[in-house]
């Protein structure tokens, strides 16, 4: 099938996701209670289930930029991880065109390594060849601005010395170096400064022109309005509203 604007790229069919959390209740802390559970063969009391996504269905199309909004803990990031195939859904199915890429705010790179090594490792992990990494390296370092940050070459310093905004810039630059069929951005731009936000918004528009689909999670309604024409509002793991940006954002802002 030819890649046409408007073809579906992501189809979510009644997706559910339940986290199993170990050590959530106080019972696990004491050795005697753990031992008595072993003896009585009761189910571990320390395991709690969190139903983070409860039956989400939608169709995303080529060329669309979709904003995901909702309160903290409404399941936005979890949903993106499901779409990316990083967390298998416990119920329902997600169909995608190619391999979606997720760019998250806590998408930890290796903090004990330098920015330079993180760029190389990130690109190799995304499946680039050594040669492609060499071609893209300068572009990534320059786009992130880390090669000359306040007059210092930060690519030579370990990432643990970066501020959260600087780390986010580097991560976005690495992910944006490749063109993706489906790119999902999880609040990665929130910590960037004005100048970098403008540059990354321009890059997102470019990626969309390459006929991909972009998902953007953000609490900043301005960046949602600037980049997305469709918004999905998640509330407690369910879709509360799905439609054109203006209407959904207006309803969301009224509701908050």
């Amino acid at each position, binding site marked *: 099938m030819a890649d046409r604007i408007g073809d579906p790229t992501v189809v979510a*069919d009644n997706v559910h996701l339940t986290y199993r959390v170990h050590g959530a209740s106080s019972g696990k802390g004491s050795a005697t209670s753990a031992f008595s559970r072993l003896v009585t063969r009761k189910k571990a009391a320390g395991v709690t289930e969190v139903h983070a996504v409860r039956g989400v269905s939608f169709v995303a199309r080529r060329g669309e930029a979709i904003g995901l909004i909702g309160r903290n803990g409404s399941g936005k990031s979890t949903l993106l*991880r*499901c779409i990316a195939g990083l*967390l298998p859904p416990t119920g329902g199915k997600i169909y*995608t065109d190619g391999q979606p890429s997720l760019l998250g705010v806590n*998408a930890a790179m290796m903090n004990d390594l330098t920015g330079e090594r993180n760029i*190389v*490792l990130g690109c190799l*992990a995304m499946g680039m060849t050594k040669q492609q990494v060499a071609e893209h390296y300068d572009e990534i370092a320059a786009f992130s601005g880390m090669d000359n940050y306040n007059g210092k070459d930060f690519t030579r310093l370990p990432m643990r010395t970066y501020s959260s905004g600087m780390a986010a810039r580097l991560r976005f630059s690495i992910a944006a170096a490749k063109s993706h069929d489906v790119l999902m951005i999880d609040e990665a731009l929130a910590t960037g400064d004005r100048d970098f936000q403008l540059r990354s918004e321009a890059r997102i528009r470019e990626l969309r022109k390459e006929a991909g689909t972009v998902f953007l999670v953000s609490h900043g309604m301005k960046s949602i309005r600037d980049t997305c024409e469709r918004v999905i509002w998640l509330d407690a793991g369910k879709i509360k509203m*799905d439609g054109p940006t203006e209407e959904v954002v207006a309803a969301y802002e009224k509701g908050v």
Partner: protein
Amino acid sequence: MANSAQADTVPAGGPSADGGGIPLAELAARHNLSVSGARPKLPAYIRQLWQRRHFIVAFANAKTRASYATARLGQVWQILTPLMNAAIYYLVFGLMLKSDKGVDNYVAFLVTGMFIFTFTQSAVLAGTRSISDQLPLIRALHFPRACLPISFTIVQLQQLMISMVVLCAIVLGTGEPLTANWLLLLPALLLQFMFNVGLSMIVARIGAEITDMKQLMPFLLRTWLYVSGVFYSIAHFAKDAPDWVRWILEANPAAVYIELARDALVESHAHVPMHTWALAVGWAFVVGVGGFLFFWQAEEKYGRG
């Protein structure tokens, strides 16, 4: 016109409309979409893994460098650690416990055994944590997860290479001659590496599913150390034991690889029979291939944590 779509219904109308209410699964099939996060078929998985070979090596190099980055002496510790270990083993087992019965060159015997066992031991320990400790990376990027246990075993291989230089120096220092036999060390270590990769993939999957493995593993490994004939000669120790006991002790993969290394380096050490080499090859292939298949079968679940 926005529409408040109910959770379990297909949104109709608006930009999300999908031309007539055809079921979503059918729509996906019509446009050749694939299920996200599905486990790739084995040939595709191997192909992806081969494609990430540079990532595996680069990740291992980076981890080695980073693990010494905060120490002031830096990578000098890669040499100091095996040296100090050898000194302690000699002090405890050679001088204090005098467990050198039935062994001619006890220092070479002990240090060889310890370094070879440490290779497997540290590969298993690193393998156990290779998935559970890298969850942020796994949840952030898409790559065949087998990269991680393989990479961590390569880290241990790099450490082993340095340990081997130290080991060879110690063995020569105890008066052993440098012979062509030493070349046998290379195939022996290669087979042990294959075995280690497989084993670390097995414990990586178990460690990802059962979080208590991290706590349990040191005890299992210590037990393994004690039965592997590192401090004592199995042949001497089990000479009065029933045949099947000796057979089990000698078929233990750790003991097999240790014996091969001793045979290569220590001239006074009794030559290993041919079936020890057969066992070494067998363990390497059974655990190497089996471990890979075992790991691959849970590929799609590793992000769960």
